[in-house]
């Protein structure tokens, strides 16, 4: 019973979709200004990815290869609409903030990457485990980035004040930069550096060397939004 562990836990750190595969970066920038929206986005991605992977894996023998991408997108998009409707009905406030990003799960490379790359060639149970694992790996990074951005940008976590704000007589001056999208790039960049310093097997060989300069480690793996 070790195979399901591999599907489930490998994507958490060793093959994380964000830090290794570089997938789903743009939503990771957009929704991580605070932990609450990040958590909602994580749940949405987990549900969409798991259910779509399960469905696509179940009907994979009947999907003609000429129209496989369209069929995958149709299934994913339908799931996304259903999730968006549920958010609007029962989590209205969060949906006001997240609606556009939830719609964009359709174009999240992570979802298409896993359905096309894994669910199309594997049985239902491994596909669901792989989807859960990858969505959890994505969620892990989102939660990490969102926690840092909310604490340093607003002095709160999940809306609960953690650091005494200067405007209320404390010592902490919120860093407005942390609430802007580029800060997520820096945090994810530092995170990748950190992980690869510990897990040196993740460091990629240099692809280019410049004349008269020491070799540069290029991390330009193919990625996407």
């Amino acid at each position: 019973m070790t195979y399901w562990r591999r599907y489930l836990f490998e994507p958490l750190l060793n093959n994380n979709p964000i830090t290794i595969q570089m997938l789903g970066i743009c939503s990771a920038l957009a929704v991580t200004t605070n932990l609450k929206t990040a958590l909602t986005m994580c749940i949405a991605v987990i549900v969409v990815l798991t259910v779509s992977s399960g469905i696509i894996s179940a009907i994979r023998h009947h999907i003609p290869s000429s129209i496989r991408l369209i069929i995958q997108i149709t299934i994913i998009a339908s799931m996304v609409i259903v999730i968006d409707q549920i958010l609007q009905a029962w989590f209205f406030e969060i949906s006001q903030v997240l609606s556009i990003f939830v719609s964009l799960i359709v174009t999240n490379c992570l979802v298409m990457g896993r359905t096309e790359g894994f669910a199309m060639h594997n049985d239902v149970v491994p596909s669901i485990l792989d989807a859960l694992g990858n969505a959890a790996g994505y969620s892990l990074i989102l939660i990490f980035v969102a926690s840092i951005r909310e604490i340093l940008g607003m002095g709160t976590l999940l809306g609960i004040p953690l650091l005494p704000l200067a405007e209320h007589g404390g010592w902490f001056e919120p860093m407005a930069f942390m609430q802007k999208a580029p800060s997520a790039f820096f945090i994810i960049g530092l995170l990748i550096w950190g992980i690869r310093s510990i897990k040196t097997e993740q460091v990629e060989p240099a692809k280019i060397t410049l004349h008269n300069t020491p070799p540069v480690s290029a991390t330009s793996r193919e990625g996407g939004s």
Partner: protein
Amino acid sequence: MSWISRKFHNMPNDSTAKAFCMATLVGVTCALTVSATAVLLKPQRQANQEAFRQQRMDTMLSSLPGLKDVLQNSDADTLQSLFIDLNTGTAAEPAQIENFKAQALTVSDNSNAEIYTLALDDSIDIAGIEQRPNLIEVHLLQKKGVLDLLVLPIYGRGYQSTIRAWLTLSGDLNTVVALSVFEQAETPGIGARITETAWQQLWAQKQLHNENGDVALSVVTGKATNANEVDGISGATRTGLGINSMIQFWLGDYGFAPFLDKLRTGEIPMRAS
């Protein structure tokens, strides 16, 4: 049935017929799922929208300077809601209101829609709303029988969504007290900044009309240079233009202009308190 299913299973996966079958099956299944969710959850979503609209209204009214004192010093029903007939600019008859509300509940019956809505030609429809209801609800606040605040609902097409807002005018029907956007789905971080308090505060004390008496209140690109202009949000030019069109339409002849004229001339008497 088993014959069809066997035939389907035996079809070669790369045949055109199979591609058509799968596309149809997946398409129909997904369409049914999406439609069922949308229809089942519609009442809940509408209730949320309505509650949010009411909440924005309350927040806006309670944030207006001095309004809290006014409400505390006067009897509670000084803030009144009024259905007005946009075609005549007068207060609507109770029977009209009943019909209008009943019609809103049975949207599917479009047989005599022209009684309730006015279809707008492209030349008139600058706000991009295609049709306009004949009755609309406005809110008035009176102080000692004199109009103090008038809250008008306005809406129209922004850059990528319908923007809905309350425009509050003071008793002179020219000075803006507040603009409060309560529904939009513009680009987050750019157009969606119209919901930020800092930007909405720029609207206070702006003038609706210029010296020629034309409606001139507008969002400009860059900094405002006179009392009719509001600073634009950089990157959100089209959202700003959408708001300008909304103002031009709703304060024009097909919007509230007939009603405002009647208020100015006193044809709609303020109820003495």
